[in-house]
């Protein structure tokens, strides 16, 4: 197990490097120079001397491979660069915002798991029942819902009309401020979890070893507890891991909608003003988070399924 863990963690490193390269390349092929776009606002053109000086300052006058090398070296020292605009270190900007994002993501995932998994499980126990149909219709609706629209409606209803909850903002980390964005963000993973749990449980129930269990004279409830639950869990764990990734993506929109001070809104704001070091840094941190979670999921997976470790 320890060897598997180390191996799995070491495997992440090349992926991070390639992602860093990819991000770097994407932002290096931008037509025109950053400096120029930074100084011009569409009406006036920037002074060439100022552009050249800024380029020198930012190291943008060096050849590309040299720049990438510098970039990676800086990364190794946990230096994500300096914001074009605020001149603050990117790492500090991200650090200021990251925990709010994490809080939101974890809250949303807890909401999704706590409701979605039991729902999918119960639906699978009675396939074709009314509960099953309602769950599945609800799930496909949840998956089709534009989250920011749902958020907007929730905000309108619970904040503006009923006045029960604050409509936006972090509110010094108050739980009341967390509720609406977390529910909004959790709806898609909830729907997906309900679906995969149901499918997974049905799959297991059709497996040969369940027939064996029945042939042993086990009652339905024992079959479920001893054999179905654990096997279906494997699929649930995988889905949770994968959903974290797309949830981080969705969080960008939700944070913007609810004016949540996370890295998502930092990313959107920086994209709007083309603050490239911040954009690069934010994306890199998001990918890092995603890979960490996936690695953790793989380890949990290996702990549940003894077949994985052998591979």
């Amino acid at each position, binding site marked *: 197990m320890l060897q598997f863990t180390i191996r799995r963690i070491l495997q992440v490193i090349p992926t991070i490097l390639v992602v860093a390269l990819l991000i770097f390349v994407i932002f290096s092929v931008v037509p025109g120079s950053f400096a120029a776009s930074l100084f011009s606002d569409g009406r006036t053109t920037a002074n060439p001397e100022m552009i050249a000086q800024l380029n020198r300052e930012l190291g943008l006058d060096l050849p590309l491979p040299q720049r990438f090398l510098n970039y990676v070296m800086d990364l190794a020292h946990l230096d994500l660069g300096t914001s074009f605009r605020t001149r603050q270190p990117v790492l500090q900007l991200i650090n200021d915002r990251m925990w709010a994002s994490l809080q939101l993501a974890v809250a949303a995932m807890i909401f999704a798991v706590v409701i979605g998994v039991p729902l999918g499980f119960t639906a699978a126990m009675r396939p074709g029942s009314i509960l099953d149909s309602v769950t599945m219709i609800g799930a496909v609706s949840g998956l089709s819902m534009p989250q920011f629209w749902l958020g*907007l409606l929730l905000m309108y209803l619970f904040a503006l009309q009923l006045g029960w909850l604050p409509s936006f903002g972090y509110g010094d980390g108050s739980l009341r401020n967390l509720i609406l964005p977390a529910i909004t963000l959790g709806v898609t993973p909830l729907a997906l979890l309900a679906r995969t749990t149901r499918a997974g449980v049905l799959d297991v129930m059709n497996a040969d070893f369940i027939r064996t269990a029945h042939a042993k004279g086990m009652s339905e409830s024992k079959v479920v507890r001893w054999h179905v639950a654990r096997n279906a869990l494997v699929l649930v764990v995988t889905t949770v891991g994968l959903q974290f990734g797309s949830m981080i993506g969705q969080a960008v929109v939700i944070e913007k909608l609810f004016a949540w001070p996370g890295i998502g809104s930092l990313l959107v704001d920086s994209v709007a003003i083309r603050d490239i070091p911040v954009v690069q840094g934010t994306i890199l941190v998001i990918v890092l988070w995603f890979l960490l979670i996936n690695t953790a999921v793989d380890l949990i997976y290996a702990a549940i399924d003894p077949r994985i470790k052998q591979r």
Partner: protein
Amino acid sequence: MKLGFNILLGGGLTALVIVGGLLAPWLAPFDPVLDANLMNAELPPDSTFWFGTDSQGRDVYSRILYGAQISLTVGIVSQIINTLIGVALGISAGYWGGWWDDLVNGLTNVMLAIPSLIFALAVMAVLGPGLISLLIALGLTNWSWTCRIARSSTLSLKSQGYVQAAQTLGYGDIRIMMTQILPNIMGPILVMATLGMGAAVLAEAALSFLGLGIQPPYPSWGSMLTDARELIRLAPWAAIFPGLAIFLSVLGFNLLGDGLRDSLDPHMRTRKA
């Protein structure tokens, strides 16, 4: 029974969006951009303005019809790009194996490591807003799942007798991929593409909502919501109807995809019975 229902409702909703988008010039009572009249701003739904008007007095109903054109274009074109990339890479990687497979696999893993909306955001940041940028951003960032499925299906087909037989009969590799493998993996690919269209419509709406996609005054459903957000207290209809349009069209694609999956996979069908 249920399977027919999914395809029917999904197909119906999708058809509605397609018809609405194609016939927008004839169906829409007003011009979506030019008929702005501040005198009519923020009117609730009535017999003239079926879905009400927005902050600039434009007819929400007409804008939604024209918005369908954008959503459909983005959904369909980006998915065609994704499917072509994913299928070409997936089949060739699965069939040839070796270093090419390692390369494609590595690339897919990297793509999967970056949440696709974030990736699209980065591409939009570089290319700048607009329809073409959207098509590129959403077309290049969402092929990894299609690729994975094409690859794994190809791997399992590769050891099937008829693919091996084709090799021994003298078929070339490309011919085998086109005639023996591709037709037999079209099912799951089609399902992925249909579901992907829904995802692309959602992503377009999200990017436009963030102001990075279709720019005002053009009527994208996402950017309509950006405008409506500011005045949700005064004119909730301006927010409700575009959102509903997104929801129903994505629901249409998703139901269609689910229905296709069920009808293509007899194993699933018997399970439901």
